[in-house]
């Protein structure tokens, strides 16, 4: 049988395989990685009937242009994404997120861009012919690990697809990614390294998401945050969501591919319930932080998980 594959006519800015992440290797310098927006990964896999742990294709800002060869596939795109299906006969159908579509042999899928967000997801029923590395399909381009030799996709590559026997899952849900007013944070372990004025600025002023943001971290620009103790700490472990402030006074939010060790003071940590919201803020967006306590953060996460489960149960 001839192999089914997508030919990558345009790779997009940062298109990679991701899944729910790679546990247990921080101690040798390998970060968690995984889909930046896990809820959208779970929804996309569920719509096409894949397992929760199945890999997906994650794209950022501009997505890939793919042509299907030797097969017919069922796919869905999640996030807030503009995309078209270009049929073999050149007719163009505009696609809707959270709805499955069948792509015929020779059709093209043009993932044009994300809207007021960064990350989107493409799930194919049956998945891709790829191998996992250390129990995960997530690509980490820094350590060059995961499928596709640990690299993002490039033009003219092929994505080989698994053959599926069963019939296609036709599914559609109504879901809108909520936009947020505040990102809620908990005090970091070096919160008191910062002057009263800096704390006030951090919790009241707007910060702009810089262009120097990627899967490793998000740099923020705004009024400088004055450190009154020490601009370095002894290097120690990091987790995603930590907001570090180096000597220049501009905060950096650690994201899923972060370096596992860092030596800058931690002013705050983004709560788990808001992580998938902050990662979706594109460069140029303004963000404001709000301080809450641990109990509140735990309760917000319970609500967030419950909401995710409710959405998944509808599918």
């Amino acid at each position: 049988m001839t192999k089914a594959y997508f030919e990558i006519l345009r790779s997009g800015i940062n298109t990679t395989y991701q899944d729910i992440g790679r546990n247990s290797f921080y101690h040798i310098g390998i970060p968690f990685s995984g889909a930046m927006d896990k809820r959208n990964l779970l929804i996309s896999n569920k719509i096409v009937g894949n397992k929760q742990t199945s890999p997906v294709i994650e794209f950022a800002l501009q997505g890939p242009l793919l042509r299907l060869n030797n097969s017919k596939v069922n796919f869905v795109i999640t996030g807030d994404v503009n995309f078209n299906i270009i049929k073999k006969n050149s007719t163009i159908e505009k696609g809707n997120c959270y709805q499955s579509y069948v792509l015929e042999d020779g059709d093209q899928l043009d993932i044009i861009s994300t809207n007021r967000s960064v990350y989107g997801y493409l799930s194919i029923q049956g998945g891709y012919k790829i191998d996992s590395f250390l129990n995960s399909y997530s690509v980490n381009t820094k350590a060059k690990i995961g499928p596709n030799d640990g690299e993002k996709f490039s033009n003219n590559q092929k994505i080989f697809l698994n053959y599926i026997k069963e019939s296609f899952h036709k599914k559609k849900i109504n879901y809108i990614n909520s936009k947020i007013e505040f990102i809620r944070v908990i005090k970091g372990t070096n919160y008191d390294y910062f002057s009263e004025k800096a704390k006030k600025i951090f919790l009241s002023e707007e910060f702009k998401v810089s262009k120097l943001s990627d899967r490793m971290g998000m740099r923020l620009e705004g009024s400088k945050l004055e450190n009154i103790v020490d601009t370095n700490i002894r290097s120690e472990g990091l987790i995603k969501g930590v907001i570090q402030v180096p000597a220049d006074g501009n905060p950096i939010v650690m994201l899923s591919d972060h370096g596992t060790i860092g030596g800058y003071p931690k002013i705050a940590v983004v709560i788990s319930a808001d992580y998938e919201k902050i990662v979706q803020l594109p460069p140029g967006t303004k963000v404001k932080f709000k301080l809450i306590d641990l109990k509140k953060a735990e309760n917000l996460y319970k609500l967030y998980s419950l909401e995710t489960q409710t959405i998944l149960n509808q599918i």
Partner: protein
Amino acid sequence: MIKNITNLGDAALYCNFGDKVNKEINKKVINFFKNIQKIKIKGITNISPSYNKLIISFDLSETNFQTLKEKILNIKIEDIQNEKSENIKIPICFEEEFALDIKKLSSSFNISENEIIKKFLEKNYYCYMTGFIAGMPFLGDIDEKLRFKRLETPRVKVPMGAVGLTEQFCNIYTFESPGGWNIIGNTPKKVFDKLNLNDAALIKPGDTINFFKISKKEYLNWND
């Protein structure tokens, strides 16, 4: 043993073992790390040992700060010996093209380049932690005469294999990466090898290593 445990965000425990950076404290951190790794507590996703801290991250849908903190405080800690009894030996080449900062160090310390190399090779090093980039070991302590501050302006690209010094520590760049350590040589050995699935990082927290000098020819022909 742990001085205190606080929360780092809503999904991690921040365990402090003391303010100093020395082998004695670090050994306690690493022994604690190995104990937790061994008993496999539900919900723990990652454990990061560093000089004097241990960060335990967890899945908030499976456990929470208070529950996990109590579990951690009630663990019976055993003394876990390091599995590797012999030293890990790392070849290093000090050819001019690799020793990017050795001239500067030589004039700052007012000792010859050969003297720097001799002092560097003399010591056994202990791995305090591994990370930042995959497999990068933070080793110490280097000879008191070789201690120097970080570069004022870090390099945008430090070559893979570079061996650098800063303060009491040395490290090995396992990938080409930005970095601010003073580079004295380069190793051809794969210190992070993703094809070695069970043991991708050669040097792990608690290991001991020493360096031995190789020529440019040996460097070029090196085969792990």
